[in-house]
């Protein structure tokens, strides 16, 4: 029963993505990208990955929109030509080919919650984390335990990168304001 909502959302996301790529005015493209992000986050939530949906909502619709607006404030928008960009045929062919290649891998993906999917069927790794993660780390959510404890250094590195990017953005923006 969920499927019709999902298909409608996929159509919406694809339409928003194509419109983002084709619109000539960058401000309009940013607005359309925010719409794309809203649909994408909804899709993640529908696939029962609410944390990813939450991240997509905050980063895609919130932070990226503001950062892109700050960026185009320093640039010049083209006023000539129509509302839509005329796509380069070679680029369009390359994008289409990439979409087809990705689409061909879709039938091999296991269904959501499939008990026979390799991740669950290969008991040695998954079973270990599911049975041992609480005893070893004291974290109730297994995904959080893997992220924050088993691969804690990796996550720490990611957090460092995000922090550095945030500091760099602040420094650049501050300079823009001062000059």
């Amino acid at each position, binding site marked *: *029963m*969920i499927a*019709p*909502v999902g298909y*409608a*959302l996929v*159509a*919406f996301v694809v*339409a*928003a993505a194509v*419109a983002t790529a084709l*619109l000539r005015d960058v*401000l*309009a493209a*940013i*607005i*359309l990208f*925010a*719409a794309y992000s*809203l*649909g994408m*986050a*909804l899709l993640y*939530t*529908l696939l*029962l990955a*609410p944390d990813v*949906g*939450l991240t997509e*909502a*905050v980063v895609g*619709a*919130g932070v990226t*929109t*503001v950062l892109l*607006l*700050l960026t185009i*404030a*320093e640039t010049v928008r083209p006023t000539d030509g129509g*509302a839509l960009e005329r796509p380069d045929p070679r680029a369009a062919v390359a994008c289409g080919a990439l979409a087809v290649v990705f689409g061909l891998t879709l039938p091999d993906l296991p269904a959501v919650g499939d008990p026979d999917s390799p991740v669950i069927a290969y008991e040695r790794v998954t079973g270990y984390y599911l049975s041992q993660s609480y005893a070893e780390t004291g974290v109730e959510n297994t995904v959080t335990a893997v992220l924050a404890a088993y691969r804690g250094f990796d996550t720490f590195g990611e957090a460092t990168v995000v922090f550095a990017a945030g500091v760099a953005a602040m420094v650049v*923006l501050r300079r823009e304001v001062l000059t």
Partner: protein
Amino acid sequence: MIVEQALLAAAAALVVLAAAVLYRAVRGPTMQDRVVAVNVLGTNTVVILALLSAALDVPSFLDIALVYALLNFLMAVAISKFTVDRGGVM
């Protein structure tokens, strides 16, 4: 059971309506149209999430709906402010 079906049908209908609003966001013609359109899309998303939360009985979806409602406001204000005085996003 029938209630869940009705809620899911309402969610599907709202997604279809979102496509209609997307047309306004693409077509414009003015930037104000697009800002209002993306704002409606955000509100639409909040309602869809609330409906899905009730239909699938997943209360945690409501948290995401709340975050959306906050972000949607921020996004609309940022873009509106940008169109009024260029560069004044913050």
